[in-house]
């Protein structure tokens, strides 16, 4: 025990600031990490697909063709770039809002539509796609991600795992217990907090009294990072480094990616009740699509025509996927009996025998 008589209260200085490489105007503020040109272009392409999917989903919901939907506009950069850093044989543990991340990691867009359609295949990645089933209950999937990463380590693999959650999720007990296990067992997991400023109507400042979310990682002795979540270059640098640490046995990383939810919480939400138009207008200035587009233009990697084509292609992709989704048959009304246990138990056999189906609406 070291003799100390001074108070050890935390210093007043803020210790985390978001790493930024690309300014909102699309200009470099420092050296860019090494990224191939095609990769840069791909980032924008995926982001445009994400934005297009989002706009379509919102309008489908208004038409009553899909159910409640949680939009991603504003958060495309963090989702797309982090997912691009993950290898195909590595695993993703997403939330209900990570449509773009899932798409990049291989989830068919059809199945992304099926999710808000209330179709059972919506929560389910195909066999060859390493994406975990979405849990609607906030933060519940974080210990699962830790457990899977831990299992991989026990098996002697060199894989990295990625999981996402929101700023609100950091208040749940499961966030805490998961991160503590991640630290204690030094699992190969990168946890990305998509701090989009709001948890439904609660602003980030009232979610927790800490200056940053990033500093929460220190409570678990975890490598902690704060990054501008609308900056593709900073994201690429921080996430790829963190995944590499995970793969090489250097333990978990906690990343606060500061971004913004440009839309409502879900289609059932009216953000006009709790946030100002001024805030929204200000945040639109930081739109990651705008910033990335400007940067690519500056680099000469994107012409007007190419940009227009990206939007056209995205529209076509989304339309095709929607058509596929709408053509998927509604499952038998009693399909759910088959997925309670590996084998039907006697009570389920009896109940299925007596089952009276209703028409699907």
């Amino acid at each position, binding site marked *: 025990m070291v003799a100390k008589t001074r108070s050890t209260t935390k210093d007043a200085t803020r210790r985390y600031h978001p790493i930024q490489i690309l300014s909102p105007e699309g200009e470099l503020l420092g050296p860019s990490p090494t990224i191939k040109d095609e990769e840069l272009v791909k980032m924008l392409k995926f982001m445009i697909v994400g934005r297009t999917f989002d706009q379509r989903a919102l309008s489908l919901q208004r038409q009553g063709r899909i159910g409640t939907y949680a939009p991603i506009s504003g958060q495309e950069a963090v989702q797309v770039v982090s997912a691009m850093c993950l290898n195909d044989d590595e695993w993703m543990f997403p939330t209900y809002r990570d449509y773009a991340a899932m798409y990049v990691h291989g989830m068919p867009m059809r199945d992304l539509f099926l999710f808000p359609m209330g*179709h*059972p295949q919506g929560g389910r990645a195909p066999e060859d796609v390493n994406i975990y089933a979405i849990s*609607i209950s906030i933060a519940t999937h974080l210990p699962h991600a830790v457990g899977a990463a831990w299992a991989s380590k026990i098996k002697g693999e060199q894989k990295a795992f990625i999981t996402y959650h929101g700023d609100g999720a950091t208040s*749940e*007990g499961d966030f805490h217990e998961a991160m503590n296990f991640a630290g204690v067992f030094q699992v190969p997991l990168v946890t990305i907090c998509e701090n989009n400023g709001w948890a439904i109507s*609660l602003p980030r400042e009232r979610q927790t009294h800490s200056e940053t979310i990033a500093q929460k990682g220190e409570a678990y002795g975890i490598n902690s990072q704060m990054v501008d979540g609308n900056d593709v270059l900073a994201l690429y640098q921080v996430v790829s480094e963190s995944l590499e640490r995970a793969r090489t046995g250097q333990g978990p990383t906690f990343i606060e990616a500061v971004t913004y939810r440009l839309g409502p919480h879900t289609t059932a939400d009216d953000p006009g009740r709790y946030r100002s138009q001024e805030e929204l207008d200000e945040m639109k200035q930081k739109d990651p699509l705008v910033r990335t587009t400007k940067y690519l233009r500056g680099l000469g990697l994107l012409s007007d025509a190419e940009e227009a084509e990206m939007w056209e292609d995205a529209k076509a992709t989304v339309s095709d996927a929607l058509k596929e989704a709408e053509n998927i048959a509604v499952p038998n009304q009693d399909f759910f009996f088959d997925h309670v246990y590996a084998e039907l138990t006697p009570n389920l056999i009896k109940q299925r025998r007596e089952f009276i189906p209703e028409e699907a609406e």
Partner: protein
Amino acid sequence: MAKLTMVQAINQGLKVAMESNSDVVILGEDVGRDGGVFRATEGLLDLFGGDRVADTPLSESGILGTAIGMAVYGLRPVPEIQFMGFLYPAFDQLVSQAARIRTRSTSRFSCPITLRVPYGGNVKSPELHSDSLEALIAHSPGVKIVTPSNPYDAKGLLLAAISDPDPVVFAEPLRLYRSVREEVPDGWYQIELGKAKVAREGTDVTVVAWGSLVPTCLRAAQLASQEGTSVEVVDLRTVSPIDEETILRSVTRTHRAVIVHEAPKTAGLGAEISALIAEEAILDLEAPVTRVTGYDAPFPVPVVERSYVPSDRRVLEAIRACVKF
């Protein structure tokens, strides 16, 4: 007196409670500025201020856990959990803490909390937004649970719950929030906890239901009457403790019973009521007690949920079979 939906009646009940008792405080996710995701707490922040209507972090165990401390310290907190499926993370604080403070302290401390929580399906919600946990709560001593089936009861039961010296779960049937409007008196009135109501009188068979399924059972009873069967519908109102007397009084007259709930069948509250009837009134029964319930599977996705929740048709079939036995 105005015609109100259930959610409006609840809103008015909260307002009346807060006006008449300054110890009543509300806390929960989005209950303040947003007025609650279903608008049950709309306008209350402006009326009563941030000390009495607190938007909390996303933290169910924290919401209920701090409410316990408030209650022990003399307030009358009315915490909200957004959906009953999110009561699971607060389950420990509910059944091992709120419910046991009195026992643990041999009544030095009490815990007068009214935990508001919407429940039930058939509104096309995603997973865990449709669960019904009344049986789990009924099996946990020290806490009560109440659920209204109409706007009038909603306000009256809510005010009784807030006045109760012990923790009460006030379970709000989501799909009845706005399904009907009804005259609701403006001021304070209470509906006694622990008392069921005969929602429809009849002589041939007793149907026992609560909350979300009472309207279903009333419709089924109406259909049955067209076939010449006279159905008595008992609306439990208080789910725990159960009003055994009203149930048994009805069944000993009708000699037949159908119990209806939305939660899975096995070890549901229907089992308790069925057991109760068979144990206490076996000699009066002219047919086995029947249960019409959700299936022993997690509440399913929207495309099939209407087949999971007991429908008018399923209740009617059960009534027919019971009468024919």
